[in-house]
């Protein structure tokens, strides 16, 4: 498919820009890996020695080009703090973050879609107002706080769910689901709150269209009109936003991974920043950027499935 190829080619410069900005940003913020590693025990001569051994004393441009050269060969480098290849670290963490992001998206869509449709059908009724108020609340509650509340209630006080950690899907699907439930609810609630407004607005807008009036005047039942005609059209913007949100969730899991002790990409990234471990940060950011771009592409391709009028030539 030429479109896919074209779009894939467009991903490369995006990733390059992201990589460059990350590289430069990490040069600008104060502190380097040697400093963080030695902490308050740092003696000036030790700092100088470690910087030399880590290659931090070489010119910026040289280090950048070298890293880029490795990247082009698919080598993300070896972390100084972890003493492990970054690619290995990322591969171990991708399933965790993808699982959390997808599960949160499932929660968000499962909550937002029915609620948004019901609210739109009964616009400005008490039920609709309750949904709107609930959405406001959902947006206002910080995810980490909701996460801690869920943990204290459903993992500690009533031990229905595990308190911390992650179980691989391949090892035990039930455990995998149990470990994901609370993080997905915590993270998905906020996304649902945002999405429900979009669903409601979009459905409301479609329902005022002429074709809806025509369908009704043909004698079609309200629910059939909604299902066959309104939803198809109303869901296109929802799909776009949901797709983008999935990408957003890839980076947005940082906080929730911290609360639930999930060994995901977000935590790797955060620790990489704290430790000033450039190769780890670069690797994680590039992975997130790449996933984001690929998800976007997937959403674009999905349009054609939802709306046959959309074609890419």
């Amino acid at each position, binding site marked *: 498919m030429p479109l896919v190829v074209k779009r894939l080619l467009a991903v490369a410069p995006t990733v390059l820009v992201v990589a460059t900005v990350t590289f430069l940003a990490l040069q600008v913020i*104060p502190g380097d890996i040697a400093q963080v590693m030695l902490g308050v025990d740092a003696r000036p001569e030790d700092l100088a020695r470690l910087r030399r*051994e880590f290659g931090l004393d070489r010119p910026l441009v040289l280090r950048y080009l070298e890293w880029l050269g490795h990247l082009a060969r698919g080598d993300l480098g070896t972390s100084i703090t*972890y003493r492990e290849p970054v690619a290995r670290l990322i591969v171990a963490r991708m399933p965790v973050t993808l699982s959390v992001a997808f599960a949160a998206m499932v929660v968000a869509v499962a909550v937002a879609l029915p609620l948004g449709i019901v609210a739109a059908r009964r616009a400005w009724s008490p039920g609709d107002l309750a949904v709107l108020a609930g959405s406001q609340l959902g947006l206002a509650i910080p995810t980490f706080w909701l996460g801690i509340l869920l943990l204290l209630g459903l993992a500690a*006080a009533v031990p229905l769910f595990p308190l911390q*950690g992650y179980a691989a899907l391949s090892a035990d699907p039930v455990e995998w689901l149990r470990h994901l439930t609370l993080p997905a609810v915590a993270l998905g609630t906020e996304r649902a709150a945002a999405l429900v407004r979009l669903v409601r607005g979009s459905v409301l807008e479609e329902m005022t269209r002429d074709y809806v009036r025509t369908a009704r005047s043909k004698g079609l039942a309200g629910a059939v009109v909604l299902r066959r005609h309104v939803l198809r059209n109303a869901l296109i913007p929802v799909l776009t936003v949901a797709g983008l949100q999935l990408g957003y969730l890839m980076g947005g899991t940082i906080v929730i991974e911290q609360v639930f002790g*999930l060994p995901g990409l977000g935590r*790797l990234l955060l*620790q990489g920043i704290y430790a000033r471990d450039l190769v780890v940060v670069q690797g994680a950011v590039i992975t997130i950027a790449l996933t984001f771009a690929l998800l976007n592409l997937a959403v674009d391709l999905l349009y054609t499935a939802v709306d046959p009028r959309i074609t890419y030539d």
Partner: protein
Amino acid sequence: MRPTTPRGPAARWRLALLVLAAALAAAGVPAGAQTPRDRFTFALSGSPDTLDPQGTAATLAFQVNKSLFDTLVEPDDEGRIVPSLAESWTVSPDGLTWTFKLRPNVRFHHGKTLDAGDVKATFERIVNPATRSPKRSDFAAIRSIEAVDPLTVRFVLGERFAPFLATLAQGWGAILPADLIARNHEFATRPVGTGPFTVAEWQRDSLIRLTRFDGYWIQGEPRLREVLIRFVPESAVKVAGLLAGEFDAIDAVAFLDLPRVRANPNVRVIRQVTSLVNVVAINNSRPALRDVRVRRALWHAIDRRQVLRTAYGEESVPVNVFMDVVSPYYVSIPDPYPYDPERARRLLSEAGAGGLTLDLALPQPYPAHIEAGQLVQAMLQRVGITARPRVVEWGFWLSRVFAGGEYDLTIIGHTGKLDPDGRLAGYGTPSRNYVRYENPKVEDLILAGRITTNPELRKRIYAEALKMMAEDAPMVYLGTPVLYMATRQGVRNFRQLYAIDTFDFRKTTK
């Protein structure tokens, strides 16, 4: 609009959801139940970066490594150095030659028997620049290492270095096997030592599962079959897990959570005075702060007990010298500058420093220091000093405040070291300490302490230096906080070695 949606599919979905919820809840039953007697679950605040003991300087790494490796010597509960892999040792009269007799029949996890070659290879690895060890300079005094016979190893130092023995007892003195070093083994993820446990599973940032090493050199130890260390950054989650019985022990209880934890009959709180000294550091190179009267005025202005009580916990102990109270090198002197705002104002006006405005940098990862900073700000306000607090990220604090000296005041805790030289080295020499404190006499005393091996003489030297420092008030010493850990009621011998800030599970039972 009439609801005309067919009922069938919706009902089926509801049923499916109910079944799913029930299945998840049923699978969740064991979460709060007791774990088996020989399996111990410990919640630790963070994850090690690497399991290579020579590749890190992180406390969290050594807290795990202690169970995987042994050192030639180790600290006991009082911080005294006692034999471990070395049965005994002698020092030559000039203090330059250290000879260690190794314990026979000690095995590494992969089966090899420990000999002098392993010790030699270990320390040659850490001083090798290719290892890129952050702790290499601790061993800079070593000139040569010789395997005299299979169980005797001799270190020859290039200069007298009294902290040498203490250095060998630290986590980065862990002994690795020579054959794997030669093969460039990846210790970072597959550690092999002589320690009481081996790694069965490691999920970075989540958990590490240690299982008993049956060939451990101490008969009958470790007593646990498995230690599961979970890395739990959120303190609320740690406490909840302990109270629910999911964790057998947790590494720290925030002092605000203490009443709740103490009220639970199934849980025991362990109190341990730490080796930390928390201070309000003063940049002695700033023109206004160069005057000792101004620095003393800061002491008089700050109600140290109030700061300790509110920010660091009721039981924190004030210190009057720059040494932790549990150290054998601590000297007890009366509070040199008791809380007295009136006197502070007088000293400030004598020094012509009325209406002073000072920057107060507070490190973001430490909420307690930030809280202390707010109290200090209010106290300084009362004597006419305007402190401008700014909270800074840790990397920023390290590079700009600590290394760069871009601050007037900052609040930080100094961790203890097994040897007093670790805490004091560099003070007196302005370019070698972050408060830019200058006093050639103190500098000389600290250098003398470094090469003095006679313990009594050493104590006297450091006591002198500590008193002189108190006189100069290069910083306001606040005090030593108490660390609270907690275990389930049945846990015995959960050991925390304050001197090297690590945990020892060898004798632990539950």
